[in-house]
């Protein structure tokens, strides 16, 4: 039985049954489990994410990190427990509903809309576009054209922000894997979510692009966006994430600051140990 580390400051208030009334908590998990035919991929996980933080989610392969992301983003329903976003219970909501409530995500393996231009990938994301109704461009042409111009400008700005503006007209399937990760970030930003979940943003990305990505994440964080990041690159996590949460076999084995993580024997055993055996 893993011993839970003491929570630093007030970051973790997830004692059982506590209502997430704290306004500084953007996301709260209470005893969340996800079962696949008897296999508990996520096992009784509780934690709170503070508004404005960058949380690192680590753990060996198969620890349940991506499953947890899928539960948080509505792609999977939890088999037990409850997820609160901004104080509202959101378990059972679909990914598209959660995005409209301010929760965006990227994928471990990028999912670009391959046969669409990079710009179109990004222009897709804003919500409630007038022209999304099929009759919009026929009945309300003028307004749609105006809105398109605005969305296009914003999309170009966002592409500039992630340094992809020169590739705007390229098919998204033809850019590099690292660029696809930046593209996914750009897409998510167009929806202006408050909480962004990134699944291994640095994996398979060259160091220059990783640098760009980290810079952008920290920029956005300063602007008030909250991040939860799954990452295997320990340097990345230790330098840029605080707090750090470690999962192993579906359970939380550690939560605390990066300094505490480095000093924690349970974490070293569960994470670095299993990693060495990969």
């Amino acid at each position, binding site marked *: 039985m893993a011993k839970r580390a003491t929570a630093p400051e007030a970051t973790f208030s997830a004692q059982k049954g506590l209502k997430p009334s704290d306004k500084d908590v953007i996301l709260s998990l209470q005893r969340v489990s996800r079962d696949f035919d008897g296999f508990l991929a996520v096992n009784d996980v509780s934690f709170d994410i503070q508004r404005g933080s960058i949380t690192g989610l680590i753990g060996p392969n198969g620890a349940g990190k991506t499953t947890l992301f899928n539960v948080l983003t509505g792609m999977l329903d939890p088999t037990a427990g409850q997820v609160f976003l901004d104080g509202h219970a959101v378990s059972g909501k*679909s990914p*598209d509903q959660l995005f409209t409530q301010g929760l*965006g995500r990227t994928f471990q393996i990028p*999912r670009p809309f391959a046969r669409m231009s990079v710009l179109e990938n990004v222009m897709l994301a804003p919500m409630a576009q007038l022209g*999304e109704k099929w009759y*919009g461009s026929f009945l309300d042409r003028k307004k749609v054209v105006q809105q398109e111009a605005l969305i*296009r400008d914003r999309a170009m700005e966002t592409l500039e922000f992630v340094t992809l503006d020169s590739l705007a*007209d390229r098919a998204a399937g033809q850019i590099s894997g690292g660029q696809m990760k930046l593209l996914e970030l750009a897409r998510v930003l167009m929806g202006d979510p408050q909480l962004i979940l990134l699944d291994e943003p640095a994996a398979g990305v060259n160091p220059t692009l990783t640098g760009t990505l980290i810079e952008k994440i920290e920029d956005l964080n300063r602007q008030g966006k909250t991040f939860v990041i799954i990452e295997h690159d320990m340097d990345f996590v230790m330098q840029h994430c605080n707090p750090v949460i470690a999962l192993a076999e579906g359970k939380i084995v550690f939560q605390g600051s990066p300094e505490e993580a480095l000093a924690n024997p349970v974490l070293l055993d569960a994470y670095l140990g299993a990693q060495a055996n990969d």
Partner: protein
Amino acid sequence: MIGLISYLVFFTTVAAILSIAVLGLNLQWGNSGLFNGGVVAFFGAGAYTTLILGGTPQEAHLGGYQLFYPLALAGGMVAAGVMAWVVGILTLRLRHDYLAIATFGVAVAFENLMRNAEWLAGGAQGLRGFERPLHAWLGDGFTYNALFLIFVLLLLIGTYLFLQRLILSPFGRLLRAIREDEIAARSLGKNPARIRLTAFVIGSVIMGLAGGLYATFYAFISPQDVLPILTFQIWAMLIVGGAGNARGAVAGAFLIWAAWTASGWGLSRFAPVDLQLYTGSIQFVLIGLVIVGMLLWRPQGLFPEKLVVSQSGRH
């Protein structure tokens, strides 16, 4: 000479009508990734409804409402759309091959219903008693057919322009996104179920328009006109032309229709007498070969889809 021209008018009319149906399928498959294996059912719904609404009173079956022609044609489109909506709600959760099988089944059921429900649409005898619009004025001759061709071509151009605007709109972007990656689209706040249903209905309404025109042209429709082979012909047109490219779809329709009529003519003329009996079957095999051959050697079609760009990054 007149014979050749009037044949060309006839040929072009049918090819243009089929082009409209191919454009409908292109919206569903080319732009939205919906595998409709029952094109003929929506084509047939448009054809039958147009004749039922616009025809003269008949004793044996439903119909004879003698509606003003544009209303009858619009009614055919609405019928195809309503059918697509019902079928869509039941089947659009299915993806690709399963959707194809389900819609294929719908088309076979449609043909069987039309063949057997005599009270509805005349059964195997088909629907008669339809007079082509303005027939009393223009007679049956070349002038009528030439004017009808112009009417069909205008509708083809109208359909083309409508679809171009549609796929360049934010709605078109949604369609492509869902075709490319439904999970990613959902993660960006889009609801694929509703969007797919809309695309399915619009495509089917266009097929219904094609069916209505087809029935108008022949002033007759019977279960023989709604056999599965028509679905395959329309698919062959789209695959040969290039799914996702509307101009390619129209080119494919003309090419395949030319190949179909030429092979029919060639077989009846040059094939040995004992094979003549099988002309139709040989043509079926040929259509199958064209589809399989294209998919093997040039799956993107003769006119591949270009990157559709609603907005360009260049100023």
